[in-house]
């Protein structure tokens, strides 16, 4: 019963924390400055020393409602965080522990946020597990489903049932409502809501190809539509010296040691699998309504065959299987690759760095069709992480209150100030609880609205302050492409990539029943390890393709069949 660790969740969270720290999904910046300006050096220092002189805040009546009411006495809340490696991207003089957004949250609620520790994004989960093991947990923290279960069984966290309705603001409650109850249900154990669930924008799942249009044009190639096109372009990028430096030093496709990862994956091969009608890592219902496991279906073998062939022919980075995301980002940022597979938000990170280094780098997003000419993608769950409050902490509602103010800062609600023109790139660093409770389809909706405003069919003055600012950035980049990397990133993510998704696509996702069974299965980690190993080894040619059949057999035998039986009961 205790071995309910799910590696899948782990990787979800790793990507999730990457996503949080390095780029931004949801939040729309409103700024007090024109968007094109670089980040201003902060004047936070003197403010920090004189916390009473805060006339610039425009607090209203809302501050006297339950979701926002400041504490009479200043209270302290301890948190932990990933993202340390990106702290250098904050404006000069600001840090994770001391920045203007954080100070606004602290002043609004009359709280002090204390960071017990700040680690790199990749290390966050490991560290959190060690902290739980050493019984040294912060007052408020983000955990995954397995940890939620474990902490609940141990009676180590507060029951949040009485607080959600009372202290969450109406936007957050509305977003929960849009998941039709799935989110809160996921956080409920024995009838009690033990954590505040996230709501992940669904746009994060589809993996698209970002391709350097300037390289395509130079080599006289057409943009990709299919897997075959990707192959052709990748081959040309390797062989025809697209950067024109006379050295054969360019890569075709980049990859990482996690070639498949739901719900979001940098440098992932997921889209190629999807194009072959394969949905690895998902437990979904087939046409007969039975839950099946995507990784053991015959379509996976076809996709593996393709990738193994690509690897053999040198189209994929020959060392991808021992690289992590950071290492492969380096290839892209240094201008050695012209294709990057990733979700819609990668213009904010890492592509913005590529454009900073080389303003000619004209990255454009493309969706890959499947064999039937349709778009179908592996989707993540709406909810997979939770904010929990340490048992015995006297103010459990403070977690919700912080999330409320964070939401205001993201969307410029309740006159919340916006200090940062590059907010989308750094919000995860600014906020004490880097956590998303979003509308599931917010990305597509916003993309459509920006498009309508550009076409003149929608009046941009109807936008909130936050969207107004982004719209200014988009317009600026449309007028002078890539003159400002931040503007470019916002335009590419919010407009071009979001519009691709807004055209619609088919979704395949893990069944909620399956997710619950998985969380309690002792054999799952072992099965997962076997799968990862086998797929990587087949991809790199270390094992023949036909070993896939043996893997399928082993998978069913070593507990997979039992797992499916339990799910289909």
């Amino acid at each position, binding site marked *: 019963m205790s071995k309910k660790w799910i590696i899948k969740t782990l990787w979800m969270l790793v990507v999730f924390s990457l996503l949080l720290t390095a780029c931004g999904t949801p939040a729309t910046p409103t700024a007090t400055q024109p968007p094109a300006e670089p980040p201003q050096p902060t004047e936070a220092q003197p403010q920090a020393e004189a916390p009473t002189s805060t006339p610039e805040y425009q607090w209203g009546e809302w501050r006297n409602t339950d979701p926002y009411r400041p504490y009479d006495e200043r209270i302290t809340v301890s948190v932990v965080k990933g993202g340390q490696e990106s702290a250098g991207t904050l404006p000069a003089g600001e840090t994770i522990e001391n920045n203007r957004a954080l100070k606004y949250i602290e002043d609004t609620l009359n709280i002090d946020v204390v960071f017990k*520790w*700040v680690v790199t994004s*990749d290390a966050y989960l490991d560290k959190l597990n060690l902290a739980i093991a050493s019984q040294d947990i912060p007052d408020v923290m983000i955990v995954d489903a397995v940890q939620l279960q474990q902490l609940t069984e141990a009676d180590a966290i507060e029951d949040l049932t009485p607080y959600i309705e009372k202290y969450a603001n109406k936007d957050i409650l509305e977003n929960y409502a849009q998941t039709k109850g799935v989110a809160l249900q996921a956080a409920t154990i024995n009838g009690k809501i033990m954590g505040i669930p996230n709501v992940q924008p669904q746009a994060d799942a589809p993996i698209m190809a970002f391709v350097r249009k300037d390289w395509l044009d130079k080599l006289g190639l057409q943009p990709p539509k299919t897997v075959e096109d990707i192959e052709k372009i990748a081959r040309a990028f390797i062989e025809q010296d697209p950067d024109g430096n006379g050295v054969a030093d360019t890569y075709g496709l980049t990859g990482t040691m996690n070639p498949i990862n739901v719900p979001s994956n940098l440098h992932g091969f997921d889209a190629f699998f999807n194009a072959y009608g394969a949905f690895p890592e998902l437990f979904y219902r087939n046409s007969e309504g039975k839950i099946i496991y995507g990784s053991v279906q015959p379509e996976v073998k076809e996709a593996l065959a393709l990738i193994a062939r690509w690897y053999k022919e040198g189209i994929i980075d020959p060392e991808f299987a021992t690289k992590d995301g950071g290492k492969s*980002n380096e290839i892209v940022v240094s201008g050695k690759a012209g294709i990057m597979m990733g979700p819609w938000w990668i213009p904010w990170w890492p592509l913005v760095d590529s454009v900073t280094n080389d303003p000619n780098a004209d990255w454009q997003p493309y969706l890959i069709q499947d064999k039937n000419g349709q778009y179908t993608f592996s989707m993540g769950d709406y909810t997979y992480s939770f904010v929990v409050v340490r048992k015995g902490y006297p103010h459990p509602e403070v977690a919700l209150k912080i999330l409320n103010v964070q939401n205001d800062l993201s969307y410029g609600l309740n006159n919340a100030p916006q200090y940062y023109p590059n907010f989308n790139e750094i919000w995860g660093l600014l906020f004490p609880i880097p956590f998303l409770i979003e509308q599931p389809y917010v990305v597509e909706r916003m993309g459509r609205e920006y498009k309508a405003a550009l076409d003149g069919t929608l009046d941009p003055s109807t936008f909130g302050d936050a969207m107004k600012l982004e719209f200014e950035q988009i317009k600026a980049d449309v007028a002078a492409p890539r003159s400002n*990397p931040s503007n470019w990133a916002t335009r590419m993510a919010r407009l071009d990539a979001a519009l691709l998704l807004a055209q619609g696509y088919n979704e395949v996702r893990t069944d909620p029943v399956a997710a619950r069974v998985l969380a309690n299965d002792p054999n799952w980690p072992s099965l997962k390890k076997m799968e990862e190993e086998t797929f990587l080894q087949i991809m790199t040619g270390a094992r023949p393709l036909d070993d896939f059949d043996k893997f399928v057999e082993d998978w069913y035998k070593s507990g997979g069949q039992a797992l499916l039986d339990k799910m289909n009961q």
Partner: protein
Amino acid sequence: MITSKRLQDRLIDGLIALFLLTLGISTLLPLINTLAISLSERAAVSAGMVKLTPVGFNLTAYEYILQDMKFWRAFGISVLRVVLGGLLNFTLAVLTAFPLSRSEKAFPGRNIFIWMFVFGMILNVGIVPWYLTIAQYKLIDTIWALVLPGAVPIWNVIILMNFFRNIPKELDEAARIDGASPWQLLWHIYLPTSLPALATITLFSIVGHWNSFFDGLILMNNPDNYPLQTYIQQLVIADRPILHGGQAQLMVKLSNATLNAAKLFVAMIPILIIYPFLQRYFVKGIMLGAVKE
């Protein structure tokens, strides 16, 4: 006949010398390669052009490190743990080895104690209970977590104990007649006569403390408390990116590869500095460990 044999002998001598020299140099080639990379420019490194000599020689990586407060913070923690841990190891080794070097008659219980220590040495407790124990003591995120668990260097204790036992009994007895207490005996006679052994075990401790990374990784929750090897492990092995677009000017010259190579090299320097001593004493020390009776 004789001359040709001698010639052949000479030739073989030469060949052996040549072979061993080549072996010795190729043992060092990887280190030289790292040094060359740390001194080369970005483009040459990413193109894999740097072998044994720097290409586009520059010191940017080292200049960057000089200003990298996190690096020096970790460096400082390593120095602290070497000093603190070394002192603890030294003191406890001496204090433990001395009574254990007495006879069972002079120190009743000596035989039980020594078996406890030997058992403790060969007992390799699993990492999980070990971690939970240290967490239980609330040592996580303190420097004590790095120095206390290994504070009694049992192998060193045994080396030292054997050394003490080989000190002539006459010295001992002479002091006894003068009415010296065990403390005075230890301080005035045993310590001064054991200097080579003490130097050896101290070097053991220093190298051990400087080189360990794993305890730092799991016992420090806050990365600000990482010792240098852990810090480097996170950067170089776990490969966390550290450079960003914001530092674009720097990236023209510097890549993570050059920077990491430079950090590896700087982390090696303390070992290189004490290496002459290491060579002198370790060679003796490894023999000390195996006293035959």
